[in-house]
Each structure stands twice: as structure tokens, then as C-alpha cells.
């Protein structure tokens, strides 16, 4: 078996346990996320786990790459604690405000700078945006084959993987030659608990921080400047109905409700 260079793209997201504290800035239409902890997007953790398992089986190196403000290094430390070998943070105002295509462009500039890569792994969808677009777009821009919705990865030989891609009511089994990109779903594995020496490992490691200039990327292809889409309008959603309140004794509620549903003609009787 030959050793593999594996890159995992991870997205820092606001911890969903605190989402009720998120609010929208009506002027900038961006999220106010002060005081809300940032974590690794859950499926990206599955991608890290899979990368570690592949490293354990084949040997090689796992590098995580992310994009965000300088304090994103705290999130990358969590990846170190899980056992990755190296981490890179793309951090530059020029990267900010990116849609999926501009995000993919930025990540690709960092991946190229890393040198030879055999496998790119990432979560199939992020916790917050949930578009699932960055994975296939990274692969397109790197011009390598890729498979999404992956819940199983096997090696056919040193240079060929076989992945199972989940589709509605079934799956497809797809083979691709390395280098390739795989977007994984939750079912692929159980993420390990942070090992006891992980925290120590994390303190010994530092994250490389690269600017857009260092990645030699065209500033017109990244950040808000490089984003084909923008958000002209954000509105609160109106889905109000009459909300007739029924409360009290369960038996009484049950009788009242059934009467109302019958007269509305939605149940028989």
C-alpha cells in the first residue's frame, strides 16, 4: 500500500445548541454570532474520522484546511485533538463573504499550495448553509473526479476507490481513480472520542495561516467579489394561522378537537 496525502476541508459553524441566540443584522443582512461558540460542522468531523481511518490502514498524512477569521484556529485545534497531522487556515479579508463557488475557489487555492494530494474529503452538507455544493465545486475546480453522499469507501487497489453514494431509496456504487474528492454523510462512521492525549497534541501543534496573496489566487474569484450570488433581501417568514388554543383536560380537548375536525371535513364521521 502506498501512503496517501489526504486533505479534509472543514467548515467552522456556530454551535447549533446556541442557535436561538443567533440574530440577523437588518442592515448588513449578516448573522450576529457574538458569544456563540464555533465548532467543526458535524459531517466534516465524519470526514476527518474517515481520513484518520484511511491513514491508519494505508499510512500517510491528514491535513485539514479551513477558511475563516484568525480565531478559526481554535476550531482547527479541535481537529488536531482528534489526531490530524497538519492544519491550514486560509484567512484574509479577501476570502470573506464568499458564496459556494467563491468558497470552493479559495479552498482550491489552498489545496494547490499544499502540493500533491491523493484524496480530498469533506462533509456532504454543512450544518448551517446545508447547500452541499462546495464539495462538487472543489472537485470541478481541481479538475478531479468526485462522488457525493458517500456512506462507504473501499480501496479496489492503490489507485482506485469504490464508494457507495446514497440516493433516494437506494444507492449507487461508483469507482474513481485517485486523486479524487469524496463528500461523506453521517452514516459512514462513528466519530471517535477525542483521545486523552489529544488536547496535549493540539497544544503542541500550530496552524499555518495563509493569505490570498500567499495562495496566489485571483482576488476576483474569491470572497464576495468572486461570488456570483448575493442576497438582496431577507424577510421574516409569515406562516401564521388562526391558532385557536385548546387546553385543559385531555379528554375534553380530544372531544372538542374531533368535533372541529369533523366539521372541517378532514376526518370522517
Amino acid at each position: 500500500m502506498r501512503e496517501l496525502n489526504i486533505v479534509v476541508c472543514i467548515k467552522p459553524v456556530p454551535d447549533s445548541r446556541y442557535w436561538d441566540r443567533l440574530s440577523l443584522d437588518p442592515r448588513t443582512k449578516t448573522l450576529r454570532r457574538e458569544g456563540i461558540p464555533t465548532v467543526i460542522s458535524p459531517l466534516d468531523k465524519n470526514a476527518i474520522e474517515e481520513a484518520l481511518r484511511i491513514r491508519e490502514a494505508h499510512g500517510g498524512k491528514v491535513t485539514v484546511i479551513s477558511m475563516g477569521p484568525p480565531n478559526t484556529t481554535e476550531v482547527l485545534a479541535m481537529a488536531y485533538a482528534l489526531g490530524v497531522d497538519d492544519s491550514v487556515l486560509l484567512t484574509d479579508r479577501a476570502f470573506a463573504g464568499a458564496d459556494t463557488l467563491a468558497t470552493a475557489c479559495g479552498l482550491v487555492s489552498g489545496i494547490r499550495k499544499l502540493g500533491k494530494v491523493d484524496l480530498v474529503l469533506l462533509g456532504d452538507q454543512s450544518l448551517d448553509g446545508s447547500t452541499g455544493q462546495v464539495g462538487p465545486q472543489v472537485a470541478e475546480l481541481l479538475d478531479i473526479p468526485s462522488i457525493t453522499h458517500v456512506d462507504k469507501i473501499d480501496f479496489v487497489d492503490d489507485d482506485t476507490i469504490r464508494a457507495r453514494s446514497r440516493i433516494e431509496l437506494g444507492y449507487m456504487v461508483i469507482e474513481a481513480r485517485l486523486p479524487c474528492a469524496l463528500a461523506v454523510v453521517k452514516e459512514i462512521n462513528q466519530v471517535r472520542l477525542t483521545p486523552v492525549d489529544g488536547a496535549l497534541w493540539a497544544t503542541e501543534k500550530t496552524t499555518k495561516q495563509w493569505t490570498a496573496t500567499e495562495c496566489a489566487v485571483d482576488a476576483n474569484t474569491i470572497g464576495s467579489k468572486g461570488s456570483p450570488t448575493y442576497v438582496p433581501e431577507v424577510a421574516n417568514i409569515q406562516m401564521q394561522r388562526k391558532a385557536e388554543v385548546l387546553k385543559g383536560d385531555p379528554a375534553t380537548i380530544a372531544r372538542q378537537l374531533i368535533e372541529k375536525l369533523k366539521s372541517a371535513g378532514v376526518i370522517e364521521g
Partner: protein
Amino acid sequence: MEIKDYKGVWVFVEQRDGKLLDVGIELLGAGRTLADKLGQELSAVVLGQGIAAQAKTLGGYGADVVYVAESPLFKVYNADAYSIQLADLVRQHKPAILLVGGTAIGMDLAPRVAAKVNTGLSAHSVGVDVDKDGCLLAKVPAFGGAVMASIACPRHRPQMATIPAGIFQRPAAKAGKQARVETVKVELDPKKVRTKTVEVFREELKSRPIEQSDIIVAGGYGVGGKENWKIVEELAAVLGAGVGATRPACDEGWAKLDEQMIGQSGKTVRPKLYIGMGISGMVHHLIGIKDSKVIVAINRDEKAPIMSSADYAIVGDFKEVVPALIAELKKGKK
């Protein structure tokens, strides 16, 4: 790129096992509305093999033009083959708008095409419209479903969006309406197809899909456990209803993600009656039920968001209310 050179609304109509998917037909309905507003043509694009006869029928669903590309390479979905062909067609014919059904395959295909032709794509759109300048506005719930964002793509074409199944109603077929069929000459280099599909497995659907049920009983994270989930299922059994779930309930393993999850990234349902319990009412879920005729919510918290979106808001513990409902319904049956 000249924006004004791009005209017309395109819908990618996916086929699986040689059958056109409903979501593609639903999007032709939505696309027709956009095309009429713009005063432009609506086209369907179909990739497959032996699919031409079915593709022709899309005229009856509103398509003015149907592009059919047939090749053994298109029989089963292949990311490279499909994205190269669709991107080539886009470059050649320059549509202003391209809508793709948000299936597992559509969500794989659309971002590749967008990257290939360097344009913007909005994911999981739950509405589409054009503004006064004729630009596409795709509505997407954002920030945990707290708000609805409009996504625009002003300087790139085509303007792309993926739209889940069930968001738009399937238009009725109009007899006699014919589309102009354009047979695409496929010149795809097989060497550019870098992945190989070695197996396709499809499970037979055991039960009726929930989106076809007249009554749906749904549960969320607040149901609290697998044991309590039986209460949800028992009420459904008494009512002859389908059982739906929110994403967190599926994540807990109480219900099946593929078959039962209702919401933006799951199914959209339009039953006569929807009864939800243990559901707080994130917009992601509410979007999937908003066209129900009657909505009943059972929640201990009168202020839970689902309560204001319901016709009847029952304040109480579902573990007490639902057994009472079941008893009352059984009484009525005797």
C-alpha cells in the same frame, strides 16, 4: 459575457430507470410561470437512453422546446457525463435560467454545472420569481430557518437553482400541446468520464409515500424516545394516516430520513389534516407542511413557533392528549 444574450427558462428533467421524475414535471409548471413573465420560451432538457418518446410528452406540461440527448453514457447518472453535456448545452444555447430538481442526483449535478460555466446556484429553493429587471430571485430559508433569504445572481448566467420535489404542484397534462423536439448530437469524449458506476441498488417502496396520505401524524425531537414514538404511530394507525418526522427525530433513529422526513431538505406534504407533536416548529419543517388544509399542533409550550402556524394549538403533554384522542376516535368507530 453579455447578459442580454441569455434567454429562456430551462428545466433539467431527470430520468431514473428510464422514467422521467415527477419533480422535473413540477418544475416545468414553475418554469412556465417564469417564462410567461419574461415573455420567453420554456425548455426541458432530458439526458438518457431510449427516452425520446417520453421526453416528447413534456410539451403537454408546458415545455415549448425539449432537448433530448441520448447516449449509453446517460443511461445511469454519471457526474462527469451529465455535467459535461449539460454545461455544453448551456454554453451553446445560453438560457437565462436553469432549474434542477433537488434530488440526490440533482444536488450532485447542479453545482458541477454551475462551476463549469462559472455561475451562481441557490440550493434547496422553496420559491422562485423574477424581479422587475427580469432577474431570478430564489427563496431560501436561512440561518436555522429563522428568515427567508432571496438569492440573486445579477452578473452571471444562467441563473441556477435547485428545487426539492413537492414544492410546486405538478401541472395537469394538456392534450394536443406539442413541444419542438431538438435532438442533441452527443459528442462526449468517453475518456472525460472518469468515474464508473458498478452497481445501482433500488429498494422497493414498501409503504405508500407519506406525501400521498390524506392525513399525516408527525413527531419531532420532543417526542423524547423510541418508546414514545409508538404513541405517534398508534394515532396514525387509528386515523389511517402516514407518519412523518422532523430531521432531529430522524437523526435519533425514530423515523426514516429518506421516507418520513418532512421539511425543506425532506418531503413537502399537502394533506387534508396534519397533526404534529413534540415539534417546536423550525421554519425548515414548517415549509414542508404549510399547504396542509388543517394543521393541529400539540405542544406543552403555548409559545412554540408551530403553535402560531397551526389552526388548532393544543397546549398539553402529547403523552396525555394523544391517548385521549385515540380513545375518543375508537369510541366513534364502534
